[in-house]
């Protein structure tokens, strides 16, 4: 793709305690009792000025409610206590990532206060620091530079909006977050996916990052030649990345084309004046249910002329089209459900004669277009203002903006690209000296990257390529090695931790709730022959329901316990005795049918081969000289 430039900003939560207090980095689903109500007042800029729009919002009563789950948040998150010293575990984890990304740690870390007054930080700023610079990742196409790696605090979790009040929960606030920003060195959609995957793997290889939904976020910056930087947020699925980039490039190309055509038609900003016209009477007896409904509620239909835009806004189906951009502006800025524009009309029940009447009323020429909004008057006016604002931007081509990714790889307008944030030093914290000794220690114990680890697993544990890859990429790779080191069979552990867990998850069991400790117990029981490997899935199912109970308890409950070798031997003898005639008749040939009888009782409790071994011994003995005593 010509002139495509892609960069990433990746945010990853660390699996340590919080960055500036000793609270656990855990989320809480139940609504806590303690809630506090706060305001955030815009502060003076460097020039002593206050953002008037922000102050206006404040004076109108914008406020924030913070829900405080007391077990995972404290006075620090409430902005009622200064930050404690930076969490050394988080610093180490971040530096480890930095080293794996070939970056140079700074000599001294200085936290900054980055002003954020949307309420997501109780303090009104986010604490953030550059911890390393000048890193890179290698892809098949070359190096992608990583100019800065930052360590910062995660924002509070938005729960809902209630008019002028936004409700946040403080559980997420303060979780350490590593921010990796690449240069826009990526030149193809596929390479972008590769970079995202690679950075993700490096992060997970440390074993010190959180996993699961919402713990990693990747924002993609996309531009094409003649286009502009557009930031795309909310990308959940890495496999969608190439598609999202392709669609964004296509959208930018289309917008550039539209701008060129508008220029050719001689359309200038001065032609786009805001003069909305009330065309409600044209729709007095409209067939359009939507419009009729609005009118019945006392709403109006307003129209605005877009001179020179005819045919450029786009028909109903062809994406990308300017029409979607206009609609998204109207939706975000005025909260309207949608707009109608002349390129897609007549449609939606709006008739050709109505379209013609509107065109007449606005005295449209051949090349002019119009946009209609049916809403209550205030909202409709605001919506058309937004439409006009966006139409003006269309003259210039691609506006810089932040967009949000949808599940179909398209994106929607979210807000203008934020300007440079106001930052000043966090004076409540001392600078953190990154001494050479610390770096040397970290370097000496850097984790293996996935490829190295897979190669080692193949050799050391004799696993198949597929199983080794899955174990390495799973969350329990470390546990795997630990269990194998304590004597468990690599194959059994690997199968359990990868295949069994995956199957059970698919069946709907919450296996992610099971702590590593339970697996340690489980394999200890297997080693002591108290648990047959066949019974492992049953135990895991039970554990997923009640993860707080020990394996021992689960076993007792499931009746999987208590079959020692002696018990089995007793059962075998009883079975042989009860079928003495049959046994004598068949001789050693009785093994198979007797196994059937025994396993009916023992399946899932004792391994088949153990039963078989005892049965063979006992049978041999019995046939030789009957049971003694």
């Amino acid at each position, binding site marked *: 793709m010509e002139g495509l430039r892609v960069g990433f900003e990746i945010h990853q939560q660390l699996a340590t305690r919080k960055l500036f207090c000793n609270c656990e980095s855990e989320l809480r689903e139940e609504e806590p009792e303690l809630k506090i109500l*706060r305001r955030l*007042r815009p502060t*003076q800029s460097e020039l002593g000025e206050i953002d008037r729009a922000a102050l206006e919002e404040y004076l109108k009563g914008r406020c924030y409610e913070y829900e405080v789950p007391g077990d995972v948040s404290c006075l620090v998150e409430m902005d009622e206590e200064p930050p404690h010293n930076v969490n050394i575990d988080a610093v180490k984890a971040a530096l480890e990532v930095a080293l794996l990304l070939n970056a140079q740690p700074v000599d001294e870390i200085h936290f900054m206060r980055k002003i954020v007054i949307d309420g997501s930080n109780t303090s009104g700023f986010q604490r953030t620091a550059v911890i390393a610079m000048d890193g890179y990742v290698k892809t098949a196409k070359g190096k992608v530079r990583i100019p800065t790696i930052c360590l910062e605090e995660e924002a509070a979790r938005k729960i809902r909006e209630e008019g002028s009040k936004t409700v946040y929960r403080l559980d997420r606030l303060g979780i350490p977050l590593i921010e990796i920003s690449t240069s826009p060195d990526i030149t193809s959609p596929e390479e972008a996916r590769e970079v995202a995957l690679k950075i993700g793997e490096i992060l997970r290889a440390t074993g010190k990052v959180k996993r699961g939904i919402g713990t990693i976020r990747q924002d993609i910056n996309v531009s094409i030649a003649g286009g502009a930087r557009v930031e795309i947020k909310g990308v959940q699925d890495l496999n969608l990345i190439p598609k999202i980039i392709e669609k964004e490039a296509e959208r930018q190309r289309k917008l550039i084309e539209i701008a060129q055509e508008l220029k050719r038609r001689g359309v200038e900003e001065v032609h786009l004046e805001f003069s909305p016209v009330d065309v409600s009477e044209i729709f007095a007896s409209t067939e359009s249910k939507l419009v009729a409904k609005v009118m019945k509620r006392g709403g109006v239909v307003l129209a605005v002329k877009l001179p020179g835009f005819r045919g450029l806004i786009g028909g109903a189906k062809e994406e990308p089209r300017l029409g979607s951009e206009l609609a998204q502006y109207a939706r975000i800025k005025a909260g309207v459900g949608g707009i109608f524009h002349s390129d897609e009309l007549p449609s939606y029940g709006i008739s050709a004669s109505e379209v013609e009447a509107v065109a007449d009323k606005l005295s449209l020429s051949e090349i002019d277009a119009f946009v209609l909004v049916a809403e209550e008057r205030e909202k409709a006016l605001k919506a058309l203002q937004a439409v006009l604002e966006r139409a003006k931007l269309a003259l210039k081509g691609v506006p810089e903006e932040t967009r949000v990714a949808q599940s179909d790889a398209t994106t929607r307008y979210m807000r203008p690209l934020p300007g440079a944030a106001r930052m000043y030093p966090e004076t409540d914290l001392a600078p953190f000296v990154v001494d050479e000794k610390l770096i040397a220690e970290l370097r000496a114990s850097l984790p293996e990257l996935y490829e190295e680890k897979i190669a080692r697993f193949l050799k050391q544990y004799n696993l198949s390529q597929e199983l080794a890859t899955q174990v390495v990429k799973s969350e329990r790779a470390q546990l795997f090695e630990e269990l194998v080191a304590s004597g468990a069979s690599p194959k059994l552990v690997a199968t359990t931790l990868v295949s069994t867990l995956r199957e059970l998850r698919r069946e709907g069991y919450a296996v992610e709730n099971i702590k590593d400790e339970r697996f340690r117990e489980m394999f200890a029981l297997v080693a002591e022959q108290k648990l047959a490997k066949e019974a492992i899935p049953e135990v895991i199912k039970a554990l997923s329901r009640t993860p707080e109970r020990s394996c021992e308890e689960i076993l007792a409950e499931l009746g999987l316990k208590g079959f020692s070798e002696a018990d089995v031997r007793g059962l075998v003898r009883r079975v042989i005795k009860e079928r003495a005639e049959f046994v004598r008749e068949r001789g050693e040939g009785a093994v198979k049918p007797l196994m059937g009888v025994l396993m009916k009782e023992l399946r899932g409790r004792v391994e088949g081969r153990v039963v078989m071994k005892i049965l063979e011994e006992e049978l041999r003995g019995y046939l030789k000289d009957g049971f003694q005593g």
Partner: protein
Amino acid sequence: MLGEARVGDRIRVLKGGRSYEGILMPRSELGDDRHVVIKLDNGYNIGVEVSNARVERLAPAEEPYSRAFPEPEFSPEKPEITILGTGGTIASKIDYKTGAVHPSFTAAEIINAVPELADVARVKTKLLFNILSENMTPEHWKKIASEVAKELNGDAYGVVVAHGTDTMSFTASALAFMLKNLTKPVIFVGSQRSSDRPSSDAALNLIAAAKVACSELAEVVVVMHAQSSDTTCAIHRATKVRKMHSSRRDAFKSINALPLGEVGEDVRLFGSYRRRSEGEVYADTRLEERVALFKVYPGVSEELLEYCVDRYKGIVLEGTGLGHVPENLLPAIERAREEGVAVVMTTTTLYGRVDMKVYSTGRRLLNLGVIPGEDMLPEVAYVKLMHVLGITQNYEEVRGLMLRSLAGEITERSLADAFY
């Protein structure tokens, strides 16, 4: 090491094949001397170890930008209040380059930062001094008291004193004792989160203080957040208030009393209070500064108390429980009585009243002439004893004044709901 480079200059640090470019920043007081701090072009600061580095000066510092704010226009119907500055920052401006916080204290600056104040009153400001509240001394109290009296006897409808929070209750209670015939409100206000941050409590506290300064209350009070939320402020009587938390917004609590009122949209006063009236306010700034506040604890050495008896004219004891001291202190206390040093008993529990007739130690202390401080806070008793000894040093007179409530510092009834 830094050569010609000065704070604010654009510099380049070359070291081991790497180079860092940015603005040279001032060094934090918590930092060592091997690093310099530079602000990178992306706005972030980093520290660079410079013992083996070369520093180049690229450009001199830019002139700091400063602007004058227009004189605010006030509605003539609003009452006029005076805001006296003594320290701390009500309004401040950050130098985003250096991170330095510059206090702003002209009326124009304050109204620019907190425009809602203009809806409450016509604001006049006067900066008396700018010191940290831990450095406040009795000399400063006198100066503040005199200035407040001057303002109240002039055009001010009420006075707001902006003060650091650490020792605010000392200054406030000193004024409560010194200002005689108080006919107008005197409000102490501060902030627990500095005003350079969007989450600062300064603005809400200041607006609430201004409202109380225009109210019917003619007392010295402290107005600060009533709870962690930015909803209401509490009005505390100066002689009953104490800072009970090192960092929370609602650190100030009334002890052995309920707050005098609450400020939300409006000022709501409850209970009994002194009402606004006419008449000249007089500042009696006589103080006997040779007064000690002496905390009693297990293992406390009698030498410490003997030292105080040698040096001071009055001693406020913070005794245990109902007002007790270990036996080893009794000789020093007896000597104090003999040498005309007034000894007043308060309690380390802060909450509750001293009562020295219940146990034998207490009875011995009473016999030694120790004056029971009733339910006075130890710090308030300390300030009051300075004030009283400034008026008289006759034991009987001192005793009489200490046992009488001069500015609401002693309550007659111990309210059930005043302990929470």
